[in-house]
């Protein structure tokens, strides 16, 4: 039983990271109906930004408190990733808006290749390990919960409530939802559609960068190929939860995290990704629009 709960805690942590990345996918998909394949690499970029900030801090400002260091890593990571995603949207996606559906998908895949190879070229192909930032582990009713895990879950919960508030209660969120429902009508009613879409990309990138920082803190290592696997799993999470739905993305992320850690604990670790993807396929067979997704109504 304790083993099971331990795995639940691990899965929850992993799932929080996936959930944070998945929100970026789901928001972008919701608003312009495109799979932003470069999003996983934005996550990796955020992780690298955090890594470099960490190195700057340890080189030039040794002895800085850990809380401050983490905060700085996160903020700089968010800014850098947001700037990258904004630029990518301007350069590679906006000119293709209104073109056919596959065109932005291809530029997104191209951008994903560009980003990971850009990091490989500028930062080198090797693993980048860092010393552990926080290492305390608490014993709660016989279950080992590390401070890292607590930080990840708390930050995820906090950011999710902030984002939920932004999307549901602010004029910006209203503009986003309006653009999502009908771009042309929203534009007619005075919503700056281009700006809204840009802001959506910035928000998604900022969350991905936080996820990247958390990933770096949790595993203590980042490498230029790290964008792919978590990116695909986060996208799977977004689809599983019902793409376009914010709570769905988080739910999907948590589910994927749980499936992964429970499968690794009770079956073979080799096939954990096979299990994840198979469950995705099975869920979609019975609920073709995801768990919380609205079924598409097609008007003829």
């Amino acid at each position, binding site marked *: 039983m304790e083993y099971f709960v331990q795995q639940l805690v691990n899965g929850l942590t992993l799932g929080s990271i996936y959930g944070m990345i998945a929100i970026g996918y789901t928001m972008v998909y919701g608003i312009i109906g495109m*799979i932003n394949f470069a999003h996983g690499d934005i996550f990796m*970029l955020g992780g*690298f930004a955090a*890594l*470099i*900030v960490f*190195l*700057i801090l340890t*080189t030039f400002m040794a002895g800085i408190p850990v809380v401050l260091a983490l905060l700085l890593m996160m903020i*700089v990571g968010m800014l*850098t990733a947001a*700037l*990258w995603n904004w*630029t990518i949207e301007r*350069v*590679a996606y906006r*000119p*293709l808006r*209104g*073109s*056919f*559906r*596959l*065109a932005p*998908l*291809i*530029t997104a*895949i*191209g*951008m*994903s*290749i*560009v980003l990971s190879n*850009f990091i*490989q*070229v*500028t*930062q*080198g192909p*090797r693993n*980048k390990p*860092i010393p552990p930032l926080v290492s305390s582990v608490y014993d709660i009713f016989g279950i080992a919960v590390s401070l890292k895990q607590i930080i990840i879950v708390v930050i995820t919960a906090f950011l999710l409530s902030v984002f939920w508030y932004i999307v549901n209660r602010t004029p910006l969120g209203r503009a986003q939802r309006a653009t999502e429902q009908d771009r042309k009508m929203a534009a007619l009613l005075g919503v700056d559609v281009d700006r809204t879409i840009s802001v959506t990309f910035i928000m998604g990138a900022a969350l991905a960068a936080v996820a990247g920082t958390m990933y770096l803190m949790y595993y203590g290592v980042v490498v230029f190929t790290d964008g*792919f696997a978590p990116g*695909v799993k986060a996208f799977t999470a977004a*689809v599983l939860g019902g*793409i376009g739905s914010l709570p769905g993305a988080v739910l999907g992320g948590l589910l994927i995290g749980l499936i992964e850690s429970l499968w690794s604990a009770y079956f*073979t670790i*080799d*096939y954990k*990704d*096979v299990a994840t*993807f*198979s469950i*995705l*396929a099975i869920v*979609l067979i019975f609920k*073709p629009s*995801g768990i919380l997704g609205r079924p*598409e109504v097609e008007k*003829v």
Partner: protein
Amino acid sequence: MANVASTTASAGSELTARALREAVFAGLISLGLFILFVGLETTQNIRNELVLNQRWGLLATFVVIAMVGRFLMVAYVQPRLAQRKAAKAAAPDVVKEEGFFSRNFSAIAIVALILYPPVVLALTGVQGSLKWVDNFGIQILIYVMLAWGLNIVVGLAGLLDLGYVAFYAVGAYSYALLSSYFGLSFWVLLPVAGLLAACWGVVLGFPVLRLRGDYLAIVTLAFGEIIRLVLINWTEVTKGTFGVSGIAKATLFGIKFDATKTGFAALFGLPMSSAYYKIFLFYLILGLALLTAFVTIRLRRMPIGRAWEALREDEIACRSLGINTVTTKLTAFATGAMFGGFAGSFFAVRQGFVSPESFVFLESAVILAIVVLGGMGSLTGIAIAAAVMIGGTEILRELAFLKLVFGPNFTPELYRMLIFGLAMVVVMVWKPRGFVGSREPTAFLHKRKAVSGSFTKEGHG
């Protein structure tokens, strides 16, 4: 200001001022983008700790390039383009008579491809031809064939498949495993590999029948990953990441390409060289690719091909007209997968070695990119796109002279995929409809009307 493309001096200076503003803005943005990643480098020191290496000069170069580029873009390129567009709009529509070359492009291309190996052999000698036939000929033709195969699924039936490489893997592994365990020959296993891949196409097709659009995309992607992960982890059969090596070569009517008395070289009194085998492989893949093209062209004129295209344009209309969408989708998946399987077994016989490394998602992405960049549905366009994208990256391998410019530590290889990705973005933004940018339905009601992409509604592309 005289050279600025505007009528009055004041407009010219305004343009320059705007260009300067934009240039400063671009400089700031690029500073923000690159300061961490270009300005600083993380490297390991002797104690294996990460340390920072400062590269401010390189960062400055990046920023200056961005500023100058943006300035030139706003001040010169954009007015020029606008002028050209205006001139084009003003000019009356003249229907250009197609020249002899463009009318007979496919025939000329096929003849050129058939003549390619002897010409290369004559120009570069037996050993020198290896590289040209193998890297530039076979490599490109494999991608042409794969892209033509995927085109049946994506271009004709409109089903977005992000896991096409799975069928390529099935084909490659079925040849590799069946030939090494049972000693069957290539010519027996080629159809078997195609059939097995087609079966897998149906296996994938069934669960995704109800899905549409992007849900379909993610499930096909997942399917591709599942196949790859099984190949990695099922070590008893597939030997995992080590891959299957020592795969038997193909034979030409029983003639082997080896150094024995009965080998190809000895039989024809030629000096022994691996170039002949490569040339044989070149014709083999050319034949397979042309078979794919032939089948695609014929199928498009048959009821099933018409059904695919109808499905692509409108699924609901399709169903209401009594087309069985289940069989239509399944046949599209199976046919596309079969050609993937053929290409896979060719890949195995060419390499003599297969490992899961060759079947990563990136391959699927590259194949899909070729299909889209070529202008979906256009066989010629796809072939051109494959030649440009794959040939281009192969050329990057040859750029050793850049070492003289950038110093001996410069490895052009590293930049191959970076440039490939950039090219994908640039070509797509520049020509969103692909190289051959119109798609004509094969069936017409009254008058032949070109349905260019701009008429195709979003979401049905």
